[in-house]
């Protein structure tokens, strides 16, 4: 096989593909795709595509269709990005390779280049207003983390500008460090200390996030090593990837394998819980701050609402306990009635009557066996007496009445 298959000007082909896709989609959206083709950054197409898609579905609660399509667009963006990066990487490797260099050396360089990407300073997930690292291959690996970022940005419990500000921006961190060193003084001492505490918690949380990201980047690096290893194994076995999809699936497999190893480690467990606990501390501090402000304005606070809910819950539990008690007393009454009825039946000599009926039945059975069968099985077979179930007293169920 040709060891140098990337000799054509693939970039031109790639650009043509993007343009073709752009035209297809313009047609599909019936001219509403007014923006011109972003030749300088074709990946912008997919981001544009996603917003277009979202616009095509009714606003309000996201439907399964719109969510699935959003994910599909996003996945396709990853898929296309992978295609672009793979070709670019091999093109670069080819350009830099000395004549006669083996493809294995090129592959090494590609993998090493990709791994360096994860050595960069960690970036926060791209929350609204916070610039993220959006146009390199690392986005592929950061998609799961971005999902958490999206959750935090859309959940009312986390989505507010103050929290984002606390968790982002190096310069903010430096300003905060200076601010935190100022001792509290005078009338505003308490408020200042609370503010400083909030800042401190925010910085801790940011640090926890960065450490978490560094760890996950290591896992991404391990995924690349695994990909490298599997490609070499394939080559040794004389196998080759036939399609971009095959490459994507192999990459997913490697990433999942590396991720599975990472997330079962003690280190992940520590970092993950530190991240979660840090976020919660920030959130709680902010909630308390908001509560204090509301309280000063004589408006209902979260604390007061919770207290009211707790009281309602306690009252409900008490009511139910009383209902259960009443039911138990009713059942006891029913049991007493049944016992009285049993006594009355005893007095009427029901047991003796039952014994007589049993004797008669026995005699009847014996006489049947003694007499020859005349005709018809029905005439000869004794009917099984129907078992009459006790009548249930409405509203007075009790174990003594039940038939099961």
């Amino acid at each position, binding site marked *: 096989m040709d060891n140098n*298959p990337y000799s054509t000007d693939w970039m031109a082909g790639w650009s043509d593909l993007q343009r*073709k896709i752009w035209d297809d989609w313009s047609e599909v959206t019936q001219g509403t795709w007014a923006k011109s083709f972003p030749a300088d950054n074709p990946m912008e197409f997919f981001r544009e595509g996603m917003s277009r898609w979202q616009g095509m579905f009714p606003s309000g609660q996201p*439907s399964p269709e719109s969510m*699935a399509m959003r994910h599909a667009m996003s996945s396709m963006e990853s898929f296309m990005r992978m295609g672009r990066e793979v070709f670019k990487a091999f093109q670069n490797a080819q350009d830099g390779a000395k004549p006669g260099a083996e493809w294995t050396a090129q592959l090494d360089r590609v993998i090493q280049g990709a791994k360096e990407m994860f050595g960069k300073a960690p970036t926060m997930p791209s929350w609204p207003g916070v610039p993220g690292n959006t146009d390199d291959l690392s986005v592929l690996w950061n998609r799961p983390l971005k999902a958490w970022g999206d959750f935090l940005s859309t959940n009312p419990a986390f989505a507010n500008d103050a929290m984002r500000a606390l968790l982002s921006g190096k310069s903010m961190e430096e300003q905060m460090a200076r601010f935190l060193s100022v001792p509290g003084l005078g009338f505003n001492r308490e408020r200042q200390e609370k503010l400083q505490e909030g800042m401190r918690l925010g910085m801790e949380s940011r640090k926890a996030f960065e450490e978490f990201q560094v760890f996950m980047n290591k896992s991404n690096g391990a995924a690349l090593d695994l990909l490298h290893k599997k490609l070499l194994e394939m080559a040794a076995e*004389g196998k*080759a990837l036939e399609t971009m999809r095959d490459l994507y699936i192999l990459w997913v497999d490697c990433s999942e394998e590396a991720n599975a190893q990472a997330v079962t480690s003690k280190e992940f*467990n520590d970092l993950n819980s530190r991240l*979660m606990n840090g976020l919660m501390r920030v959130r709680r501090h902010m909630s308390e701050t908001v509560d204090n402000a509301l309280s000063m304005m004589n408006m209902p606070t979260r604390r007061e609402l919770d207290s009211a809910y707790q009281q309602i819950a306690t009252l409900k539990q008490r009511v139910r306990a009383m209902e259960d008690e009443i039911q138990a007393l009713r059942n006891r009454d029913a049991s007493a009635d049944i016992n009285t009825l049993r006594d009355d039946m005893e007095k009427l000599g029901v047991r003796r009557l039952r014994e007589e009926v049993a004797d008669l039945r026995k005699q009847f059975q014996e006489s049947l066996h003694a007499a020859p069968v005349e005709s018809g099985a029905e005439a000869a077979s004794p009917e099984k007496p129907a078992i009459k179930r006790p009548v249930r007293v409405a509203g007075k169920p009790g174990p003594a009445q039940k038939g099961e």
Partner: protein
Amino acid sequence: MFPFAINPEKAVEELARFNQKLSAGIKTFTEVGPIESGVSAKEPVYREDKVTLYHYTPRVEKPHRVPILVVYALVNRPYMADLQEDRSMIRGLLDEGMDVYLIDWGYPDASDRYLGLDDYINGYIKRCVDFIRNRHDIYRVNLLGICQGGTFSICFSALHPDRVRNLVTMVTPVDFHTPDNLLSLWARNVDIDLLVDTMGNIPGDMLNLTFLSMNPFRLTGQKYLDMVDLLDEPVKLKNFLRMEKWIFDSPDQAGEAFRQFLKDFFQRNGLIKGVVRIGEQRVELTNITMPVLNVYATKDHLVPPDASRALKKYIGSTDYKEVTFNGGHIGVYVSGRAQQEIPPAIANWLKERG
């Protein structure tokens, strides 16, 4: 040998073809219509707060005389057990002659944050069970608990053995500290008190993301690329979207119940240690003396098989049976094979026990 047989022309062609499929899929998407779920006929027979007890219309003339009550997890919605006509465990049970009830927990809101496990187990479940007992004039019902609902059913059976005739558990965690239990591992060092005190109820989306994080690349990426292959098949696409709807239809978790479940079960592994208290009573698994059928899935990544199989070791019942399903946590209700295997296995086991 060079391991890439993908040349640029071929790749461009592949990606173009893929994109054409995606853009052509718009039509299918807009025509797919509403995504229904919960297909079997049912009627609400009892309501309390946000909880509804449903009775499914029997599909045989004379259903089995002891009804079966399905107790689903608080996480996600119970229509997973009745997703679509050809993927419905409930329908399978009805076809096997069972008389089926199901508890729908509804969507807790902030006013429910103080609901604890006592409210769920000694409250809602007990009153649903009593409703069925009275309605059918019987002492005991059959219980079928699914996942976390299975753990609740185990607790209920241990606390009220006089009300349970047979207990069936499906993909139910019992030993929460098996080495392969990733969820438990992740929860081990999280400050649950801080989490609940801060959040109140726990957002369903937060749990969803936790579940997705177990296979992040496959579940947030590859799955949707695979979906593109379904875009020209409306029925398959609708089935995919139905499942998608279920996955992201996640009620928030009542704060106090979440706190107790995470701390007592996930962190302390209290169920098998006999230290879980529900209300005033301790849950003693040896009180479970009724027949028990335990269904688990061999490829379950949420509730590993060993976490379920532990039940045998701790209960007092001598009539214990396991049903092994060769599949995953979701496949056990919705896969085609599960429809053939699981409902008949449960129904036959119950019929044998009267």
